[in-house]
């Protein structure tokens, strides 16, 4: 007998008491199987916590991002290129990783920085030599101060926001902001690889002192941009 059959057999025998309780539930096709699950769990919890206006939701996102030591900047569509260029300059970056689908105008003012395209064949060592990375995001969650990246063309492969030490993430507000985790999951596509980012990399492993940046980027800058919606 394969271990698969062995384990499944053990599970079925272990659940003899349940089978006696719930006979009937076990029969039926896929669709009938799912229907009982919808009823099997009480979901009395909230879809979002407290009522907020759109502006207040963006405000909460900014607060929670800052609380987790992300550096938050705000601008409108016209000022974005200047802000991004300023952040790269302030960080002293000579090179910047650019996802294939990033809007060109976002980097249009960073004339003295060398662009490194996100390529499948780049080695990890090559990425390690790049100073900064600029990406968009799939959405941001206000209640938790979280950015979610889903590998879309303006965000690139997962590793480009991991290996360089400086990540600039542009969030279009209010379009890309949701209030809560349940609202976020509803919009996200599980077949894409997702990275949820709440503040820079951190550890509290040494006597519970929080230290930023063990392995991921040590500096996370978030630019909230208005008027740049699709």
């Amino acid at each position, binding site marked *: 007998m394969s271990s698969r059959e062995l384990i499944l057999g053990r599970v079925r025998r272990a659940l003899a008491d349940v089978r006696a309780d719930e006979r009937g539930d076990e029969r039926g096709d896929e669709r009938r199987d799912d229907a009982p699950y919808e009823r099997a769990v009480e979901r009395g919890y909230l879809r979002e916590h407290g009522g907020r206006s759109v502006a207040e939701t963006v405000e909460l996102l900014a607060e929670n991002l800052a609380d987790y030591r992300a550096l938050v900047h705000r601008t409108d569509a016209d000022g974005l290129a200047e802000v991004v260029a300023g952040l790269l300059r302030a960080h002293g970056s000579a090179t910047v990783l650019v996802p294939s689908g990033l809007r060109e105008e976002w980097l249009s003012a960073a004339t003295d920085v060398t662009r490194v395209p996100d390529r499948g064949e780049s080695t990890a060592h090559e990425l390690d030599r790049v100073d900064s990375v600029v990406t968009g995001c799939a959405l941001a969650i206000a209640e938790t101060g979280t950015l979610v990246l889903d*590998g879309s063309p303006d965000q690139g492969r997962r590793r480009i926001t991991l290996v360089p030490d400086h990540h600039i993430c542009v969030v279009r507000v209010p379009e890309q902001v949701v209030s809560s985790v349940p609202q976020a999951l509803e919009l996200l596509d599980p077949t894409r690889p997702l990275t949820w980012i709440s503040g820079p990399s951190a550890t509290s492993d040494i006597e519970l002192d929080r230290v930023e940046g063990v392995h991921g980027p040590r500096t996370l800058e978030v630019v909230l941009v208005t008027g740049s919606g699709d």
Partner: protein
Amino acid sequence: MSGTYLGMPAFPKAAHEAVHNTTLRGNLRHATHTIRAKRANAVAEMSDWAELREAGKQIKDHTLRHLDRYLVRLEESVQAAGGTVHWAADADEANRIVTYLVKATGESEVVKVKSMATQEIGLNEALEAEGIAAYETDLAELIVQLGKDRPSHILVPAIHRNRGEIRDIFAREMSEWGRPAPEGLTDTPAELAEAARLHLREKFLRAKVGISGANFMVAETGTLVVVESEGNGRMCLTLPETLISVVGIEKIVPTWRDLEVFLQTLPRSSTAERMNPYTSTWTGTTDEDGPQTFHLVLIDNGRTDTLADEVGRQALRCIRCSACLNVCPVYERAGGHAYGSVYPGPIGAILSPQLRGTGSEIDSSLPYASSLCGACYEVCPVAIDIPEVLVHLRERVAQGGPVTERGDKVVLKPAKGHAAERAAMRAARWAFGHPGVLRTGQRLASRTRRFHPRTLPGPGRAWSASRDLPALPAEPFRDWWQRTNGGKETGK
């Protein structure tokens, strides 16, 4: 479980030693009290905490009650997304599978993100025996690995080490494993973290094989989820060409939507944060992004035996948040090593004896490593009634009875010399048989004090002889919690 812990003394002896280690007690007290207070605040932000906890409990219970169905569905979804699924009945089989998979890549080193399942099966030792070096990449796990000892806390595995010790370990050991510690390394946490960053980055950038666990697996979609802080998880999950995830069969949730419950309760219960810095989800493989080969090794290793126990199976709901450790008066004094397993604290006291059986001295003593104060149950985000299972397991040790071992039903004999426990069990059963006592949160508090001996009987005797029995609260836990502001003010 793992051979790693075979040489461990039983809980009474280990705890005796631990309570006389003042560094350890100081570190633990500081850690547990700090996290405890922060967690209370993080939970208080959520007005629907009770509903989230109930939903979490129900999702996990439902999954366990139909585990065969969800395992099969998970397998289908993972395969459809380009992954390969392997089944391992016990630790040896899991180790054989992983060793084989690593060897097939032609590599002799792997990077690992912290995984309790791989600790449980002793994977690092098994790989080492086959000439494969496994590097732990979580900062605390690195400290533990370089220091050649064992983790002592689920969340802060090196909590038993202070910064001076960590500095010495890094300065002494890093060169053995790769990039040496910088000259003149001091003991400031920032410098220590930087040394770890440089040491480990060298390994990440050349790694071809990554090994992980998972916090959740979604049956519907075949998605795996890893929740972490440092980014070492992301490194292991995305830089290597091959990813091998070793996961207990109980880690399933049925649907994508179910994550909305656990991604709200886990970070707050665990690190007391609104959200941990990084959460990664992946579904099979993605072209040109991350590992192009993905293996999922599903392990039983005692879980189906635990599932067969109608009272004890609730332990399989555990999402390893470690909240129960931080509130436990016994853990606070004894430390994680005293439990002699990768699962310390209250959850370890009920999970380890179920996964491994109560045959050994350490496992038969674990159900006694508790004052039954009920604090662990109060904080548990999936509402595992740890005191109920403890009493149930004590009864099993004392009186014997039917259990399942490796899938077969057997009848355990009562442990010898346990007459005293049998009396204690009767007392406990009295309390648990009275819903009023149980449900008002008073647990075995004031009303049942007269049933509690000053020293523990049987396996617990040696332990309680080394110190006063952790005082049973004279007042109900809830009252104590409120009076002391969640344990922040001295009131213990």
